[in-house]
């Protein structure tokens, strides 16, 4: 056989190999995943919440037991293993007193808070704090004794107070109302607010507590990329843009915990890569808002374990600007015509977010503090009625307007542009950068597509006020809420309410004005998603799809 013939054979083999590869990648045959076992025992409920949101420091404490010895669960957990999961983004810094941050999961293995909150009952349970009381404007925390940070310093009232005071110095105090902190003794901290707040305990209880000594010894720059806390894990390695690796804290103050040897968060921007890593058992958790990907994972035998909670939902909202008196949006009738009757929200949600979106028109789901079924009933897609209302308002032939939003909302704007054409409303779509000052300086007009997070919970209702308030505050530049003086008054009444019933009453009325009476805004839908985890992952809070580094273990 001469050289030419040999080369010919090699070339043919190469081509055949390529054809085989293409053939192997075609089709969607359902193959058994050898690494997957039976689906996990958690049963998903009807409407998934945003699975990418993790409540901070949702770790099981000792309930009301002040004993630091952990009570082992009934089915004895096993020790060992490293929990890994992937996220597409990382926070800009790890030090909360300096900068607010998204992505609490990056710090919860190391940094703990005064209390932890149960994801279903929303009750606060002791963690670093032993007990607390609230007497009008004063909240008093008693800390557990003998808890140390991993640098050896002790958790004291001074350290806790320093955490909050540093946050206030850096301009982050508004989230907990900028109170005054008095150190009564080493383990008693008194917090004095300027007025009574119904959620005063809540805004303090779940805030992460960092080591003061670490800050004083190493400085701010070091703290931005390092973590020293009281938690079940210690920071082993942080490679920005790649991963953060924690290892077990052998001196954790709760004896016997944690069960795992390590905890890792990997930065994987590409959803396909995350999916491949999950099905290969390289990561233990996977979330997606893509229905196709979710279906692929489900087809492999994994169960969607996303859980609807009353809070933590990301919604897409429509905000018509009423500041320009010559604009059609200045008229209440126009806003009501379009927002209440002129948009098929089911179609919009499907086109913009896929089949996993949930169409709700208020700041929370059924069961939350001031869910109002009448608001849902008020949104009825009736094209003829909408056109008639527009005609009565002086726009029988429709009008032209600007439709603006951030690039992430392009799909919403495109779908909406098409839907509004049915009302003879012509939209000029304008993309705005998320940090574009035009979004906040009043120069934006027309209809704005925006996003918000609804922290609407069943017991405190504090989060819903955040949603209603942020709808007012963040977009106040192009919405004039003073057109209805009752709205602002009711929001203030709700924030100053002394009981949850009072709050529910005032905020409920404010919500009706916002969404129905004035139609200042409309919530189009809540973003849906699915969450999957490896079936051998166990933990007390796992059924709530909540991060819980302390009590997670592997049943294998």
């Amino acid at each position: 056989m001469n050289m030419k013939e040999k080369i010919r054979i090699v070339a043919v083999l190469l081509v055949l190999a390529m054809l085989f590869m293409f053939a192997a990648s075609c089709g969607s045959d359902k193959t058994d995943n050898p690494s997957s076992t039976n689906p996990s025992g958690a049963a998903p409920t009807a409407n998934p919440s945003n699975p990418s949101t993790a409540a901070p420091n949702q770790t099981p404490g000792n309930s009301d037991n002040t004993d630091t010895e952990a009570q082992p669960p009934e089915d004895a957990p096993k020790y060992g293993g490293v929990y890994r999961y992937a996220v597409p983004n990382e926070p800009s810094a790890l030090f909360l007193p300096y900068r607010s941050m998204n992505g609490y999961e990056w710090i919860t293995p190391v940094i703990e808070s005064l209390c932890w909150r149960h994801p279903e009952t929303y009750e606060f349970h002791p963690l670093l704090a032993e007990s607390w009381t609230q007497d009008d404007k004063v909240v008093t925390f008693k800390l557990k004794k003998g808890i140390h940070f991993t640098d050896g310093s002790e958790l004291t009232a001074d350290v806790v107070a320093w955490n909050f005071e540093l946050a206030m110095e850096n301009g982050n105090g508004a989230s907990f109302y900028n109170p005054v902190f008095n150190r009564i003794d080493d383990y008693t901290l008194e917090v004095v607010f300027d007025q009574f707040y119904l959620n005063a305990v809540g805004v303090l209880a779940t805030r992460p507590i960092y080591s003061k000594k670490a800050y004083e010894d190493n400085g701010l720059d070091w703290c931005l990329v390092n973590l020293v806390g009281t938690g079940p894990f210690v920071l082993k390695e942080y490679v920005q843009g790649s991963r953060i690796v924690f290892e077990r804290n052998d001196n954790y103050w709760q004896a016997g915990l944690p069960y795992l040897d390590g905890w890792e968060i990997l930065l994987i921007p590409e959803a396909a890569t995350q999916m491949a890593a999950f099905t290969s058992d390289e990561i233990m958790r996977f979330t997606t808002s893509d229905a196709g990907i979710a279906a692929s994972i489900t087809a492999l035998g994994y169960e969607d374990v996303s859980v609807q909670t009353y809070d933590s939902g990301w919604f897409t909202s429509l905000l018509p600007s009423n500041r320009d008196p010559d604009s059609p949006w200045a008229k209440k009738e126009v806003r009501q015509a379009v927002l209440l009757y002129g948009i098929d929200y089911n179609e919009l949600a499907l086109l913009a977010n896929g089949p996993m979106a949930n169409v709700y028109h208020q700041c929370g789901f059924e069961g939350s503090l001031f869910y109002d079924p009448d608001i849902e009933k008020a949104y009825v897609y009736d094209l003829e009625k909408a056109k008639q209302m527009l005609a009565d308002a002086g726009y029988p032939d429709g009008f032209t307007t600007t439709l603006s939003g951030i690039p992430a909302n392009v799909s919403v704007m495109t779908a909406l542009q098409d839907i509004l054409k049915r009302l003879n409303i012509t939209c000029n779509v304008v993309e705005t950068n998320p940090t574009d000052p035009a979004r906040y300086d009043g120069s934006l007009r027309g209809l704005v597509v925006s996003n918000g997070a609804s922290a609407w919970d069943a017991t405190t209702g504090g989060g819903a006020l955040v949603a209603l308030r942020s709808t007012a505050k963040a977009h106040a530049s192009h919405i004039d809420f003073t057109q209805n003086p009752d709205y602002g008054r009711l929001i203030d009444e709700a924030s100053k309410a002394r009981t949850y019933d009072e709050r529910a009453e005032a905020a409920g009325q404010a919500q009706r004005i916002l969404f129905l009476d004035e139609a200042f805004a409309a919530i189009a839908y809540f973003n849906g998603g699915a969450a999957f985890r490896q079936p051998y992952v166990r933990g007390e809070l796992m059924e709530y799809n909540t991060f819980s580094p302390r009590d997670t273990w592997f049943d294998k």
Partner: protein
Amino acid sequence: MPINALCAQMQESIIKGVVLMTRYLLTRFLQMIMVVVVVSVLTFFMVNLLPGDIVLIVAGTDEVDQEMYDAIYYELGLDQPVTERYIKWAWNALHLDFGKSYTMNVPVFDAISARIPTTLYLSVLSMLISTPIGVVLGVICAVNRKTKIDTAITLTANTLNSLPSFWIGIVLLYIFCFKLKLLPTIGFDLPWKMPLGKHLKLLILPMTCLTLGGIAGMTRLTRTSMLEVIRQDFIRTARSKGLREKVVLYKHMLRNGILPIITVLGSRLAVLIGGSMFVENVFAIPGMGTLSVKCVQSKDIPMIQGIVLIMTTLLCVAYIITDIMYVVVDPRISLKSSAE
């Protein structure tokens, strides 16, 4: 010639060569400085024109009160004129201080130096693999032009050249990681930071993505270049002198046909480094590509400037090396004429 005279002549040649090389390198170095300065000025002013408020990006939220806004604004030096900020930055850059990243809160130099080895490792390795394979295949095609071999290889090269690297990456991921589960998906790091066996397994897919396109391009280029040379009279002369075909191929054809390939090598490195961001994104590799995308999206001006400056410098060095290789390969080209 007496030995003394011979030694003196050799000594004179060496000194002349060193002087010529030094002069050449100095000239190219000065040109490089000019290029880097122009690029840095353009980048600085263009980035400042990007939409978005840096203060809100650094704050990480749009719920910022005026006090916090002002604090960040003055901390970043945004109250100073753009020209003053550039001059200050340029002076610090001369001392390798590119400032602090707005979003990562670490010195820019540290962030880049942590990631550049990964990208360079992948890019250079890809070049080292794709270039000889591409040249060999190109020679085979040229020698066997208009045969079935030539058609098959050329068709394959054209197809591979047309496919985007990130698409190849996702397909390979799907086949080898998702379906067949033969290779690991994530966890890539440099070979001296992890077990070699694991590193090689993690290297296969990203290297395949980066290399396939390079092989295809080199094959086509080599084929074209060799076909140009094959038609030359001196090749016919060499054959008619009775030289063996291998000698004609390697000593005459390849040596003359390789110049365009050397030309491409410098720009090939630039393409690889730029194209690596797709591959790094798909395989979650923390390199310069992912860093570049992130810093542009977040308008991290110090990081953008640092990356542009360092990459420009690296590429200028690559072009200088390419020019020196010309002289080595083709004695007709001198450093003097090359610098001109």
